[in-house]
């Protein structure tokens, strides 16, 4: 009896903690009420409402006015639904959250679908996150999608994907050049560490098909 009571207590505590994480306190009562309604609707729809809370809290942090906070919450809820549809059959809340982040930076749903298909079994939060980082760094969205997809197909690990996303912005500032060039360079430098590429043209002409070098080095 005592053990059953303890178990029931633990469940209640866990449920309370989960409820707490979805509680939102805005700058005024009306904003809190409206955002809470949006959160409840998202929960009822089976969406990861924690993302609505997170972005609404961020809006509070930067002192956005009440109507703007509500608008943000509503937009996030809408994107979560689109995100969930776009990455099916992936259903993990974290995957849906990261797909919403990508949509918030205008990544087309097509690219999300392709990423979902390219990694049918593994979670896709990390590639979606890297995609968003590349887009924020102003890599053209199509090229950003191509790079992430290529890395997924070539078996890139989450750490390799992370290295691309977390580093390309610094490269842009260092190169002082287009983000596209920086992303292409980073991806190219990862080439040897991903699933094999063909022997480089330098290998092919130096040591493969011919045993003495050819090409521009030879007058």
């Amino acid at each position, binding site marked *: 009896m005592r053990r059953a009571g303890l178990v029931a207590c633990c469940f209640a505590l866990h449920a309370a903690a989960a409820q707490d994480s979805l509680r939102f306190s805005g700058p005024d009562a009306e904003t809190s009420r409206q955002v809470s309604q949006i959160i409840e609707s998202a929960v009822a729809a089976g969406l990861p409402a924690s993302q609505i809370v997170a972005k609404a809290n961020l809006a509070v942090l930067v002192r956005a006015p009440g109507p703007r906070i509500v608008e943000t919450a509503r937009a996030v809820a809408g994107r979560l639904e689109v995100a969930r549809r776009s990455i099916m059959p992936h259903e993990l809340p974290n995957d849906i959250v990261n797909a919403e982040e990508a949509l918030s930076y205008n990544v087309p749903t097509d690219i999300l679908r392709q990423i979902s298909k390219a990694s049918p079994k593994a979670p896709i939060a990390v590639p979606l*996150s890297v995609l968003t980082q590349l887009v924020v760094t102003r890599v053209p969205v199509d090229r950003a999608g191509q790079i992430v997809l290529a890395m997924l197909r070539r078996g890139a690990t989450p750490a390799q994907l992370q290295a691309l*996303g977390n580093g390309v912005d610094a490269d842009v500032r260092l190169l002082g050049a287009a983000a596209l060039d920086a992303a292409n360079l980073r991806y190219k430098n990862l080439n040897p*560490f991903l699933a094999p590429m063909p*022997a480089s043209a330098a290998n092919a002409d130096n040591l493969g098909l011919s045993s*003495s070098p050819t090409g521009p*080095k030879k007058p």
Partner: protein
Amino acid sequence: MRRARLFSYFICQLGSLASSGFLGAQVESSLEIGASRLRQANVPSGNSFSGGATIDWLGERGQLRATALASRQTESRWTGQAALFGSLIGNSPSPWWQLDVAASNYAQTSALPTTSAEGAARARLGSGLRGAALGLGGGASVTGGHTGGVQRALGDGWWMLGPERFVASFGWTHTSPPKAFAPSAVSYADAAGGWRHEAGALSLGISGGFRFQSSGGPDVDSWQLVDGTAWFAPHAALVLTAGRTLADYVRGTPRTTWAGVSLRLSPSAHFSLAHRTPDRSLPRLAVTRINAERVEIEITAPNAATVELMADFTEWQPIKLERAGGVWRVAGGGGRPITSGLHRVSIRVDGGPWTVPSNLPRADASPDASFGLVTVP
């Protein structure tokens, strides 16, 4: 029937290459103009001016290089060479086969041009970091009215260690060159090795090999090549090369010794010597996953007395970090429970303003507030 199935298989591979890799491929190109001092077989030493162009197409599973070079030694002596190299590998992540093709044309004044085409198929083992391949190849070479066949057996290995790349190869070749190149059929074995260092704005390479010729030439001969490229500007590099190469009976190029310098221009930006080095005194953030739940966050801020972190995973509450050696970490060690994916962070050093870590992309939450976007693996 079997042949038809094999043909269909390779057509499907080409189709999947086109659909998945072609549109996402990277294209790089460069122009090169230079001068060299050279000596070729039966030609006195002299100065030469050259111009060339290279285009590389790099796809997920395929690679193509087209290159052309023209060289002027005297008013009446020109040479020109164009070559096309292509490679195709099997499906990732562990392709076991590779196909290579090469076509070239070499011409010089007062001599017949030579056109060649070859293909090779290799079985490969390993990864892009280290591996080996074995294969067979063949083709033909045409000079004037003479067509000679070529057969090859090939083997090569590669190993990458950071910015260093080591390659080694061996091969056997049998070919029937025109009488102008050799009096009879030629067979030889080659053994070669090479090293390349590529880091930032600099690329250095040394390669060389030995040829053991069983017929039609000296018993043992060697070749050497050294090159260095320094990108002094994002789109321009200085290239120094020197070498001694052997006659290529298949492509019709003569034995050559040269030393040269050239200017390479590229529309793609490269890291260059002109770029400022990153300011290592600015705070940087790194994340490493310890286990399924916990992540270690490290901030490098060498001159800081205090460092604080605020992020979505701290519910936007500032937390103080503690110094651990040369970095700052969350107090208590053991990392924090953080989900994989995108997170927003901000840091504050010595009680100053909240800023974005210098190595992360910046996202504006409002005109007055920016956050760094970090991917947690």
